[in-house]
């Protein structure tokens, strides 16, 4: 059964234990940080920061409130990166995680252009760089463990489980707490659904989530055009051959008539 994560933003306290757990488990090097306006740290997702808690200081009338939104790969049900990769280095596993077979990678970076969430990052400091991103601790899942980030979460803001059950839980929380949540499970329908789901009490666009996004799987857009390729190749070759023979004959006849 396909696994997923449910991140309830109302429960996140911004402790960043998940960031640290991710770095430790995946053996990612520290990157130098700088002071950022919103106190987020590290400043951005990159090849060595696979998850990052975004700090958002929101104004609500004369009140200000903090909200913390953990971001990482969304593990799309229909990943744009998988469809974009011309050596099939990205694979959506039946277990849920979207994983990357690094030995196949040519380094074209079309996945980075393709991702609707700008998740895949590149090791720009290396001579032969790899694309890096969260893999929902696929190695831990295979050993029957949860991802490092969900085990580290002290408040239960980030929980791991079967995606369908998590979706039902999210809807239950919305229903049982009238007025608390925005009536929207982010990731239920976005780009055809994602393994990572979010609940929030403030509009998602205020937390940097893209809400003006298609609900159709992005690979479907490409495939609806790309599927015509073999038909065009064969049909067009046939037409060109016919044209070639017809106009050649005509030109030959003209030549004979003309002289």
């Amino acid at each position, binding site marked *: 059964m396909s696994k997923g994560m449910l991140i309830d933003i109302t429960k996140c306290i911004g402790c960043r234990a998940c960031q640290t757990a991710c770095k430790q488990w995946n053996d990612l090097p520290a990157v130098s940080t700088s002071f950022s306006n919103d106190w987020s740290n590290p400043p951005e997702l990159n090849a060595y920061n696979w998850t990052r808690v975004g700090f958002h200081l929101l104004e609500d009338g004369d009140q200000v409130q903090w909200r913390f939104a953990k971001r990482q790969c969304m593990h799309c049900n229909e990943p744009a990166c998988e469809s974009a990769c011309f050596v099939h280095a990205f694979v959506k596993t039946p277990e849920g995680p979207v994983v990357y077979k690094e030995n196949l990678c040519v*380094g074209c970076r079309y996945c980075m252009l393709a991702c609707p969430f*700008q998740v895949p990052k590149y090791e*720009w400091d290396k*001579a032969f760089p790899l694309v890096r991103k969260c893999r929902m601790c696929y190695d831990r899942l295979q050993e029957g463990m949860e991802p490092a980030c969900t085990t580290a979460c002290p408040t239960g803001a980030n929980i791991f489980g079967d995606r369908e059950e998590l979706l039902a839980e999210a809807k239950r929380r919305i229903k049982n707490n009238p007025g608390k949540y925005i009536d929207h499970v982010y990731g239920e329908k976005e780009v055809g659904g994602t393994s990572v789901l979010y609940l929030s009490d403030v509009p998602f666009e205020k937390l940097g989530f893209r809400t003006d996004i298609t609900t159709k799987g992005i690979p479907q857009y490409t495939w609806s*055009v790309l599927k015509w390729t073999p038909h065009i190749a064969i049909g067009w070759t046939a037409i060109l051959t016919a044209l070639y023979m017809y106009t050649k004959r005509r030109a030959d006849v003209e030549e004979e008539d003309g002289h």
Partner: protein
Amino acid sequence: MDQYTRWTFRMTPYRVVLIALTLLMVGVATYRLLFGLGAATNLNDEWPWGLWIGFDVLTGVALAGGGFSTCFIIHILHKKKYHSIARAALLTSLIGYLLVMGGLFFDIGRWYNFWRPFFYWGHHSVLFEVFWCVSLYTTVQVLEFGHILFERIKSEPLKKLFDWMLPGLFIIGVMLPTLHQSSLGSLYIITVDRLYPTWWSMIIPVFFLTSAVFVGPAMVTFEGWLASKAYGRNFQAEMPVLTSLWKVTAWLLAFYFVLKCIDLTYRDAWGYVFNGSFEANMFLVEILGFILLPLVLFLIPSVRNSVGGLVTTSILVVVGVVFNRMNVVFTGMADAAGGHYFPSWMEWSLTIGLISAGILVYCFVVENFNIFHEDQEAYKAKLKKEKARAVADGGAPVQA
């Protein structure tokens, strides 16, 4: 063909500069291959694709589109009056594609893995189709050139072999570019909801294909004019052929404009054209300045029949296609991508060096192979025939 007895390469000050730029490029390319993209370029996580993909590959393939469109007209439709430009168009297209392959090779992060897509089929990727088509088509063009090569090297059996292959090569050599010229546009279908809506469309492959075809005659005109300057050839004599070929461009410019209007209406995207944003204004400049203006100019007889007029109009079309590809890669993506990108001096150097190398190869080939002279042979034969006919008619021989 007695004039070709030795291989020659004339040295001029311009060529010394081009050679210097090429050598600098070789140095930069070596540095990039050894130390990586991060060391050599300003590419970053927001801008994974930059000058090399945007200009060298996307624009380079489009500008080399003159090869397959003239091949279609001359060899598939057997329009013999355009024969005089066939070899020049093939040569520039072949050089163009070799540069594209070069540019692409330097752009891939793990270049020792470049062969992977031949064996690991990500058939659901547009890039997979582009990779296969561009590789095959470059091979096809090299084989097409065999016809010219073995005429020069004088190996009858080999020339016969390559001549025998030509019809098949012509047909495949039109089919493959039709696919990948359009697919270069399809690459951006995946940027749905991110590429600015004046450029994003489900039919962006049709726009890319159409513009790759209409830029063909413009590019042939522009290159022919440059070559006539460089080699002291009579450009005026080629004008009737070029003006006639240019009609294809005029029709397709009109088609492109009408299709754009239909597409914008269908997607209800006219609001994005006139909202005054930077993207909208760039789009308006593209359509008004580089689609409608050259079309209107061509429709004026005094403009299209003058060398200056036709060349200027052609330059507008060529610049327009460059502008369009840059808009898709950079202008249209800027808002969604965020961050900042401007090519590093090494990126510029590699691009400029590749073009310099291309010009040098072009010069070498036209000076050592029969690229331009085919038409002059035909012209001489025609004169001879007229002369013979005049003699047969009992009149005086015409003055040649």
